[in-house]
């Protein structure tokens, strides 16, 4: 009898000891594991089309992506080739990224066809991948986040028709021959202009300011009745602005550009550029990263996400909503510190 009482007392002590151990080791372990959920943020590699923050567009994309990473708790590693034409470099970078086995990849493809194998490799390595801004000729990207380029091209053409005379002769300066954005923007513009304007054969600047400038000069010289120019991306628009300003024919030749930069905004204020179709790069960057988070959380993500485009004119460029889109905060100068 005495023995069984002693046994129960012993058991109670054992249980108390077990509970104490539990409290000492398991609970803090559990808590730190819970914190770890916040500390160990999954790494996502973002491959931009170019990674030298010269282009405002990519600067804002980056800003959007970084904001989202903060909001949805991801670690971003932003990379990209030196310029938009360095396709081989981007292919290499994608292969490298796949080898590093990140949680996910966001890709702004420099080429519609040549990045497909890299994306397939990512998928077969089990890495979720989404494309942003410029897409690829494959269904392997789980989502495409970007501007509906056909719609944007159409909008640009409609805007041009507003400023141009009836049945104008219109030059289209596109950027990179064969790139998906060039193809789609042209397609949208051509559909709108069909029958309403005489469209000159499309020329390609190769997304180079100097080339665009030279091409514009040639067109201006050979087409005295030119009644409008569509410039299909930012450096191209810059080159056209320069040539048009110098020609002094800006009043009779309305120019509509695509994408944004300091130079283009000055062009708008100056009046050489009548309107500008801007994408929403912040939203593009933001939604890409949010989509990646949703994929990682096994939530459904729409296959196509149109971030839309907006027509900016001298009149509306300083409206609060547009100011936000056009003039990124310069983070480089914190004052109170």
């Amino acid at each position, binding site marked *: *009898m*005495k023995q*069984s*009482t002693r046994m*129960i007392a012993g*058991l*109670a002590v054992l*249980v108390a000891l*077990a*509970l104490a151990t*539990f*409290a000492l080791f*398991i*609970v803090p372990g*559990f*808590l730190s594991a*819970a914190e770890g959920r*916040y500390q160990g943020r999954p790494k996502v590699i973002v491959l931009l089309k170019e990674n030298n923050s010269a282009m405002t567009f990519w600067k804002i994309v980056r800003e*959007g992506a970084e*904001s989202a990473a*903060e*909001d949805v*708790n991801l670690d971003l590693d932003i990379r990209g080739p030196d310029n938009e034409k360095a396709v081989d470099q981007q292919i290499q970078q994608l292969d490298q990224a796949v080898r590093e086995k990140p949680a996910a990849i966001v890709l702004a493809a420099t080429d519609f066809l040549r990045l497909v194998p890299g994306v397939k490799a990512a998928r077969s390595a089990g890495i979720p991948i989404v494309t942003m801004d410029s897409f690829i000729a494959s269904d392997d990207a789980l989502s495409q986040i970007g501007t509906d380029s056909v719609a944007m091209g159409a909008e640009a053409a409609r805007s041009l028709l507003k400023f141009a005379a009836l049945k104008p002769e219109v030059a289209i300066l596109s950027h990179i021959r064969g790139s998906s954005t060039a193809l789609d923007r042209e397609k949208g513009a051509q559909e709108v202009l069909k029958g309403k304007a005489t469209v000159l054969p499309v020329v390609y600047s190769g997304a180079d300011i100097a080339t665009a400038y030279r091409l514009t000069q040639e067109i201006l010289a050979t087409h005295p009745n030119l009644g409008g120019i569509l410039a299909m991306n930012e450096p191209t628009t810059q080159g056209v602005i320069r040539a048009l300003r110098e020609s002094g024919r800006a009043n009779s030749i309305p120019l509509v550009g695509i994408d944004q930069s*300091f130079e283009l*905004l*000055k062009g708008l*204020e*100056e*009046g050489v550029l009548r309107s500008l179709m801007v994408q*929403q790069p*912040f*939203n593009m960057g*933001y*939604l890409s990263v949010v989509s990646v988070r949703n994929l990682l959380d096994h939530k459904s993500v729409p296959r196509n996400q149109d971030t*839309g485009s907006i027509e900016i004119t*001298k009149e509306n460029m*300083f409206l*609060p*909503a547009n*100011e*936000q*889109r*056009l*003039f990124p*905060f*310069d983070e480089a*100068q*914190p*004052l*109170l*510190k």
Partner: protein
Amino acid sequence: MKPRSIRTSLILSFTLVVVLSILILGLSSGLVFQKNLLDNNQSSTLQLVGQLNRVLDGYIGYMEDLVLVASGNSDVRAYLESPAEDPVLRARVSVFLKNLRTVRRDIDSVFVVRSPNEILTSEANVGLNPFLDQRQLEWYLPYLKTNSSIAVSSARVENLLADRYTWVVSLARPSPDQKIVQVDLNYAVIRDLCKALQLGRTGYVYIVNSNGDLVYHPRQQLVYSKIREEKTSEVLAMKNGTLTTQVGDRTVVYTAATSTHTGWTVVGVSFLDEVFSSSRDVFTTTSLIALGSLLVAILLAWLVSRRISAPIEELRRSMQKIETGDFDIEISVQADNELTQLANDCNLAIKTIRELMLDNEREQENKRRQDLLLLQSQINPHFLYNTLDSIVWMCEMEDGPGAIKMTTALAKFFRLGISRGSDILTLKDEAGHVESYLQIQKMRYGDKFEYSIKIDDGIREALMLRLLLQPLVENALYHGIKPKEGPGRIEVLGHREGANLMLTIRDDGVGMSSVALERLQNPGSQVHIGLENVQERIRIFYGTEGGLEVNSTPGKGTEVRLTLPFLTTELS
């Protein structure tokens, strides 16, 4: 309901109590904890937001003073008021503006506007924007308030300067003829102030002015693109306080403080799931502890119940043995509590039952023996031979009536004496039996004795154990009257005394000495089998309720008194 073992019931109820108390305790403390967390969070957010509001008020107030200083400057006033632009004043004001600008680093630029074409700036080296739109100068119109001469913009892009777009908050003091003194604050100041305020992991602070324009929002682009929704109109309607609402799939707590000075509303946005994320950790910890205690409780229940139910089980097994009639057991219980006592009591009870059963067996044996003795005494062969001799003799003497009388009495005597019917008969029958006996003896002994039987009226139907009187009467005759010289007398009396039936057999024979009387009452003496037999049968049948008393005086006679409970048919 299905019967459950004590053990199962114990474990179940133990577990139930523990689970319920843990649940109630956990839930209530969890709720209290969450509520406290929410309250603390709300009050601290309210404090933070109010603080930011006061900082901004102080800051904007200071800048307003600066605008007043600038517009009150005599050179500036003279410059603005002179009908034509004065180059001397122009130079002096430019220097003044440049100096003013250097007062604080957070001033982006200072402007004095005479007309759209006559603008002086602190940034003279930068130059003015050649493509300036007149409308851009009139930004302040929506911000003019009746109670203040100074307009304060929300966040805006300043484009007065050439090749420079900067984010500023502008303060302007326009005169009625649209001459303006304007100070641009670097927007980064306000942005940094707001950014420094983190509410939870992703909570934030934003500022909206009375027109509903965002002064600061960490994700302004998303708000303008409607990717992020803010309940700004509801917050503005509330002005100060806390609003909890559902935005998308998250519950958002808006905490607002509105400045009467600037009209800006500082809005703290925190997410309920983040407020509760720490409570979730507490919850998981609590649940783990609860789980642990539950396991311990079940273990304890198991042990304790075994301590209780094992002895009970042992008791039950023993009782089952007893049911089958096995009383030769000893219950041994390994417990240190009441159950041991119970087992001991049971053992005692079993022992008593065992003894009682033995007693009963002995008693039955005794009764059988007494009955046999009685039977023997009834068919005493001497008595039978003698009686039959007497009958023969009467027949020889041709005493027909005597022989008939005696034979009849003998038959009656035997019918009652050796019939193996009920043990109980009426007093009337018992008396009849005794009378038959006495008749027979009287005929044999003639004048040797007289007898009388006097039974009170009304008690003749009383019930009694049979054959109590005849052995005593036989004793009286053989041991009292027969040794006496001369005739004797035997009396049998019956009457009722309260609840008792009193029967007395009295003789006036030789009597007994006290020594003989004592020997008589010593059982097993074998002297007077009749008396002992009667006594024993009374004891067996009536227990303590019946009694036999012998009084005797040598030479005078003997009296035997039977005291029996008075029984009738109705009672039995």
